[in-house]
């Protein structure tokens, strides 16, 4: 068994004439936290969207645990695509909670649908099993796990609330719990605090830091440099669709080699 959980090979993506990703290659070890920084328009969001199958890369390959989950140009069945999607989780800048569902239901919706399907298939294959009874215990399990996750992100009191009743920071923490409920191999964050008031960013960053301690593999796109430095095992600096610089936080933040990275870090230090 290899230590490498994710390999991204020569990923390219263009929108019309605009080549946004121009050959992105990197790999990630299990439990590693990769932080991606870079100026606006450098392709960070597009990269995460390609990993989560919201965009289809034009060229390149993605492997998880050594298995190819995406190869450009190859057709996938809906089923394969779904399997591939489930390797990844994504926390959006704008939370995107489902407004019509309670906090608890937001977290249980996807796992209960998926587990129901799997159980139905299993029971079809083996008629001696009782679908209804097993489903009941399965749903109770899903609920219990969801409640646990919601407590982990510090919202045990809000299970029955609806998203509109929560602050942005609380909504984002629910979104994190929701993503975790699918147990993705790799959890991606796209500027998880950019839509938040400054006084609410801390609570969300604390949750993400907590996940690092529980050995989650994560890719975090952020403009919070101090947080990036603290949480990252490795840092990638992107510019114009390529990885301009890559290394430990000490290397990238301490002694950036490329001119662009130096300029970017200098300007973001001024802002911070």
């Amino acid at each position, binding site marked *: 068994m290899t230590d490498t959980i994710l390999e991204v090979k020569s990923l390219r993506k263009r929108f019309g004439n605009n080549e946004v990703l121009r050959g992105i290659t990197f790999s990630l070890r299990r439990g590693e936290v990769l932080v991606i920084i870079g100026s606006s328009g450098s392709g960070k969001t597009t990269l995460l969207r390609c990993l*989560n*199958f*919201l965009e289809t890369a034009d060229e390149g390959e993605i492997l998880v645990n050594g298995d190819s989950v995406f190869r450009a140009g190859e057709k996938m069945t*809906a089923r394969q695509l*779904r399997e591939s*999607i*489930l390797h*990844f*989780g*994504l926390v*959006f800048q*704008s939370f*995107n*909670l*489902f*407004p*019509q569902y309670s906090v608890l239901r937001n977290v249980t*919706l*996807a796992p209960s*649908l*998926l587990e129901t399907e799997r159980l139905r298939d299993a029971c079809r294959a083996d008629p001696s099993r009782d679908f209804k009874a097993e489903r009941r215990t399965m749903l109770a399990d899903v609920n219990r796990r969801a409640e646990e996750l919601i407590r982990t992100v510090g919202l045990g009191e809000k299970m029955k609330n*609806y*998203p*509109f009743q929560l602050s942005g920071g609380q909504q984002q923490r629910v*979104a994190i719990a*929701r*993503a975790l409920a*699918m147990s993705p191999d790799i959890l991606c964050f796209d500027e998880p605090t950019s839509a938040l008031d400054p006084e609410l960013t801390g609570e969300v960053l604390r949750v993400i830091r907590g996940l690092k301690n529980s050995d989650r593999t994560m890719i975090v796109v952020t403009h919070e440099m101090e947080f990036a430095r603290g949480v990252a095992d490795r840092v990638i600096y992107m510019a114009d669709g390529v990885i301009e610089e890559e290394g430990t936080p000490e290397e990238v933040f301490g002694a950036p080699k490329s001119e662009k990275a130096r300029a970017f870090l200098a300007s973001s230090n001024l802002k911070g």
Partner: protein
Amino acid sequence: MFISVTTSLLGGLAVSVRIFLLTLLFALPLGLVICFGLMSRFRVISVPCSLLVWIVRGTPLMLQLISFFYIPGIIGQNIWGGGEAGRTAATVVAFSLNYACYFAVIYKGGIQGVPVGQREAAQVLGLTRSQIFFRVTLLQMIKRIVHPMSNEIITLVKDTSLARIIAVYELTFTGYSFMKSDGIVWPMFYTGVFYLLFVGILTVLFGRLEKRLDYYQG
């Protein structure tokens, strides 16, 4: 006299209500099919659907009703037969297609009003396309379309009176026939009371639905 007029009008109302309910029964789902057609990536589907919506919304419902009723006979295929049942069936078919097109456009607006992020979040969580529609989009869409849909459905109540043009004895035609046969005018005005009651009940029902959906925002 009052009693006998009321009884006849109630008979007419029953016909109107039947046309109304059957039209809804067919038009609500058919509208969704046309809506998906309009939104299809494939032009071979979306273009004919747009054409259909254009024709249906661009011509009077009365003309459509007449066409549906008479054209089969003209081309020698009188599928409706001569009786009341056939005329009502022709009415329901014409109305269903007409209202389905209006509903389709409303549905489309409702679906497009749901932020893309909702579908993307669901997709990333591994929901299938149909799960995304039924579990995530549908309710948010319904909340957005309650108002325009209630307008259309209330219009449908009054549009049922067009069926008199092909001699369906619905409410208005029943009231009118007293004018012709007995020379009395008031039953005609009396029909208004029935329409008002009918629409009043619908208004209350839509109000309830709206309240039911008030539990969340966004």
